[in-house]
């Protein structure tokens, strides 16, 4: 439904007046972005840049190496100058784009030097080197895009570096084998520690990016552990003494961090991580009950995030969590799928649960809307 018919519909139901309808239409027409114009500009820039790259690539062999290197340095310096002079400009997207381009050109220059001097490649060492060189850039960005990209590159390359270094590989094996959950707990605790430490620097963009990264990692880890419970990979062996010691130290650090933090949002992260710690503990003693434990863990996590979404008026998140909870319940039903009797009973139970969830979700949504209305009136 386009805005015109939507507004007519609202007017028909006496939600808005004729005057309001016209005012909204006028405003929407005024702020309308010339998408066609911007699309053509983007397309022409894209074609020209790909064309230039293709021309350079076609003549790559005949371009002397020193010209390649000088050009790379001139390009990086030019973009660097662009960042410097646009730092006070209002064009925030241009500035952020230049920072991103600068970082990518540095990676490209590392690759070029590696190619010219025939340097041996060892895993993702070039990306690790790039991470070191571009780390200070995170302190001059105003949007979390580059920090998020940096964190992704750094995490992958440091993991690869640990994997390639024999001593560090032993540490990785100790953390992630036979259970991945110990490694996940330690990783998330370390990240929370970094997050708390970064708060002292008061770098909002950095904190936002790290927060997003922690949430994404947590979601991936929880999903992975739940998949193990689903029987995709079953690898249940008790933790050894050294692993228990690591668990203890990590838990102590986690509890200390929890005690030190006070913000409401931080508490959600700590409650979720405490569930992961609990799961790691119990999965060790009940290896055969891993299926039900992981399902319980996921249901608990989703419920807590759902409550948080409800309390903080995040309606989209709340609805998404409700759907995920329903799906997870259906997953439990699939896990116990057996004879006709259990199938029938399982389907009836699932149906009742879905109905209850739908009813309760609707009730919560209306209560939620009412509270929002109350807030607006106040």
């Amino acid at each position, binding site marked *: 439904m386009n805005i015109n018919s939507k507004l007519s519909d609202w007017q028909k139901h006496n939600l808005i007046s004729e005057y309001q309808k016209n005012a909204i239409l006028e405003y929407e027409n005024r702020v309308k972005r010339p998408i066609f114009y911007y699309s053509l500009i983007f397309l022409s820039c894209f074609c020209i840049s790909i064309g230039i790259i293709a021309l350079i690539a076609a003549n*790559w*062999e005949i371009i002397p190496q020193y010209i390649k*290197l000088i050009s790379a*340095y001139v390009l*990086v*310096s030019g973009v*660097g100058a662009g*960042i*410097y002079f646009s*730092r006070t400009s209002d064009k925030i997207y241009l500035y952020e784009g230049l920072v991103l381009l*600068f970082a990518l050109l*540095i990676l490209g*220059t*590392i690759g070029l*030097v590696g*190619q010219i*001097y*025939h*340097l*041996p*490649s*060892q895993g993702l060492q070039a990306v690790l080197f790039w991470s070191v*060189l*571009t780390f*200070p*850039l995170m*302190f*001059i960005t105003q949007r979390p895009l580059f920090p998020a990209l940096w964190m992704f590159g750094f995490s992958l390359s440091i993991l690869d570096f640990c994997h390639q270094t024999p001593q560090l590989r032993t540490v990785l094996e100790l953390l992630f084998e036979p259970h991945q959950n110990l490694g996940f707990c330690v990783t998330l605790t370390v990240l929370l520690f970094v997050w708390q430490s970064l708060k002292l620097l008061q770098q909002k963009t950095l904190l936002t990016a790290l927060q997003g990264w922690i949430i994404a990692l947590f979601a991936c880890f929880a999903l992975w552990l739940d998949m193990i419970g689903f029987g995709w990979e079953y690898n249940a062996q008790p933790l050894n003494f050294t692993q228990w010691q690591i668990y203890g130290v990590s838990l102590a650090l986690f509890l200390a961090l929890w005690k030190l933090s006070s913000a409401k949002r931080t508490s959600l992260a700590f409650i979720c991580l405490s569930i992961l710690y609990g799961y790691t503990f119990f999965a060790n003693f009940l290896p055969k009950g891993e299926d039900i434990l992981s399902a319980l863990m996921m249901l608990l996590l989703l419920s807590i995030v759902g409550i948080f979404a409800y309390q903080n008026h995040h309606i989209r998140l709340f609805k998404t969590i409700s759907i995920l909870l329903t799906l997870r319940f259906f997953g439990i039903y699939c896990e116990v799928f057996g004879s006709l009797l259990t199938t029938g009973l399982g389907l009836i139970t699932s149906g009742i649960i879905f109905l209850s969830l739908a009813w309760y979700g609707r009730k919560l949504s209306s209560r939620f809307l009412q509270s929002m209305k109350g807030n607006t009136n106040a």
Partner: protein
Amino acid sequence: MHRVILFRLVLFFPLITLFVWTLSLQYTILYGNSVTVAVTGYDPRDLLSGHYLSLTPDWTNTDCSQFEKNKCPKTDFETRYRFYISEDIAPQLEKLINQLRPEMSLEFSYHNHHPAIRSLLIENTPWQEWYDAKKQ
């Protein structure tokens, strides 16, 4: 004022580091001792990896007298080297190497225990000359 200094530092740090790194590589290439290490395909069945020849030192066929105390410093060298070959030549070169099984070696510039590749030699001639001769 502090912000301006921060900006300059942040932007100059990667540039200067990259520049010093490139200079150090160039210095090693220019002023190191020339040594030749015999090489074979890292995976003899599949020599080419993208645009690169994937090579591994063959210490049994390397003349160790070119190093100090007549001893090959194996730990100073990597176990795997990549040598860039342009896209249009690489498949033909790989084919020729697989057919003729020539002796290959990498010429390094060796300075202060740091080896840097200078060129690829096939039957003791630069690879491009060897390729041009065999192609005809």
